[in-house]
C-alpha cells in the first residue's frame, strides 16, 4: 500500500463516513499554514520551485498539476505553494500523485484551493490523472474545496503543494 493509498484511505474514510467537521479540520490542518514574508513578486511563481524541479509553474503541463482542476495560483499572484494576497487556503482538499520528471519519483500533491475572492480567470487547467468521482471526495477535483474556509466558499485559484514522496 503506497503512502497515497494510505492518505486517500484515511481521508476517504473520514469524509465518506461523516466524521465531525471539527475533527476533520483538526486532522487536515496538520498540512499547516504559515504567514509568508512580504516579497517583491517578480518571478514569485518560479521562486516557489524547489531545487530538483524543472518546468514552468505557470503552464498547465507542469508536473505537479497532473490532477488539478482550476485557475493556477501561479498566474494569480500566488505560487504552487502560496495563495494570492487576501485569499485564504482551504484547509481540506483533494490529493493526487504526480511523477517529477527531474528525479523520476512520484510525489503526493495536495491541490488546496485559495478562497475568498472570485475566480482569478487566468491559466485554467484541468488534468485528471488518478482523479476519482465525487463519491470519493478526497480524490475528486470536481468539488469546490473552499467550502471549509473561514472566509466562506468562494473559489479564487488552486495550488499544488508537495506533501511528500508517494512511496
Amino acid at each position, binding site marked *: 500500500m503506497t503512502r497515497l493509498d494510505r492518505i486517500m484511505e484515511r481521508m*476517504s474514510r473520514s*469524509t*465518506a*463516513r*461523516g*466524521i*465531525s*467537521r471539527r475533527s*476533520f479540520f483538526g486532522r487536515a490542518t496538520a498540512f499547516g499554514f504559515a504567514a509568508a514574508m512580504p516579497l517583491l513578486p517578480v518571478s514569485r511563481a518560479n521562486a516557489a520551485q524547489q531545487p530538483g524541479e524543472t518546468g514552468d509553474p505557470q503552464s498547465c503541463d507542469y508536473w505537479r498539476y497532473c490532477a488539478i482542476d482550476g*485557475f493556477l495560483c501561479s498566474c494569480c499572484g500566488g505560487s504552487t505553494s502560496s495563495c494570492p494576497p487576501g485569499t485564504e487556503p482551504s484547509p*481540506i482538499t483533494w490529493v493526487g500523485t504526480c511523477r517529477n520528471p527531474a528525479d523520476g519519483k512520484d510525489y503526493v500533491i495536495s491541490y488546496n484551493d485559495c478562497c*475568498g*475572492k*472570485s*475566480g*482569478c*480567470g487566468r491559466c*485554467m487547467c*484541468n*488534468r*485528471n*490523472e*488518478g*482523479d*476519482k*468521482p*465525487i*463519491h*470519493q*471526495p478526497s480524490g475528486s477535483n*470536481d*468539488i*469546490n474545496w*473552499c*467550502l*471549509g474556509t473561514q*472566509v*466562506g*466558499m*468562494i*473559489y479564487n485559484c488552486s495550488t499544488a503543494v508537495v506533501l511528500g514522496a508517494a512511496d
Partner: protein
Amino acid sequence: MKTFTALAALCLATAAPALAQLQPEELKKESLAETMQPHWVWLNDISFDRMLDGRAYLVDADSGQMLGMISSGYGHGILMLAEDGKSFAVPSTFLARGTRGERTDVVTFYKTSDLTPGAEPVIPAKRYNGMPFQSVSPVMPGGRFGLVYNFTPEQSVTVIDMQAQKMVGEYATSGCSLIYPTGPSKFFLICGDGALQSATLDAEGKVTLGKTSKKLFADDDPVTEKGVWTGSQWLFFTYSGKVHVIDHSKDVPAIAKSWSLTTPAEKDWRPGALQAAAYHRGTGRLYVLMHQGGPDTHKDPGTEIWVYDVARQTRIERIALETPALSVAVSQDDKPLLYTTMMGETDLKVRDALTGKLIRKIDGFGPTMTIIQPAPVPAK
C-alpha cells in the same frame, strides 16, 4: 400584443401600409406558455470565471430562440423541474457581500409562464458546490419531493416539499453521496467504497436510511457519478466503459446485469465528458459521448455519440460530432431532439435524435454550460 393587432388592422384599412407613419408603442412584459413545451430546453451555465453570476437559459430548440433566463447566484447547479413542466425550483447560494459575509442558501420557486421568483424557503447553508451533476438536486418521481445534496464535507440531503414549496428538513446520509431516486419515496446514494446506500421518505418527506449493499463497483474501474435513469432503472458507467444496471427493487441495491459499451476491438474508445449519457424512454435508446483515450480520460469530451438499444445491449449507430461535446441530452417526445454543448463554446447544437443529423446551432450562451435539461416527462 393588442397594440400590434390594432395597428395591423389599421394598416390593412389604409391603401399604402408601407408609408403609414409608425405608431407609438407600449413597452410590455412577455409571458410564456403555462407548460414547458417538448422541445424547450434549459441550459445551465456555472459561469466558471464569474461564478457569482450563475444562470440558466431557456431555449426553444424548434425556433432557435432564447425564451428567457434565470439568475441563480454562486456556483449554479441545476434546476429542479416539476414533472408537469409548469414550475421549477432552483437551489442557490448567496453571500451578503458577494464573495464575503454570511452565506444564505435558498430554493427559489418559479412558474414556467412568467419566470418570476416566488416562494423562496431558506435551506441549510450546506449545498454541494462544484461541478454540477443531475444527481445534486433531483425531483422524486411523482413530483411531491425534491432533494438537495449537501457537502461540507459532511454529507446530508435537504428535502423540499415541491407542492407546499417549503423545506421538510435535513437528513444525514452516513457519508454517502448524491441522490438517485427510484420511486416517489425511494432513492439510493453512492458510497466511496463502491457500495450503494438505500433510503426512503415517509409521507411527510422525512428520510430514513435503509440497508447498505455490499461493494458493487471495483476500485480499479470505478463508476462515475453520472448515472442515467431510464424511467425504471439506473445505469452506471465505469471509467473503462462497462454499464452496470442497478436492481433497486429489493431492500438492498444490487447489480441486475452488466454489459460493455465497447467490443474488445474498440477498447481505446471510452465514455467521458460531464453529462456523459442520455436515455430516450420512447425508443429505449441510450446516447453516450465517446472518445478515444486511455486511463484518466474520463472527463475528456466526446468526439462521437454512440447510440445503443439498451434492451438488446447493442450499438445502433455512431454519430460523428463536428466538434467535441461535454454534455448530451435528449428530448422525450416522439420526435426527439439530441442536444450537445461544449465547455468553452457558446452554442447549443440541435440534432434529430433518430438520424443524428445536425438541425441547427443556437449561439450566444455560455461559455461554461454544464447540464442540459430538456422538458421533463411525468413518471409512469
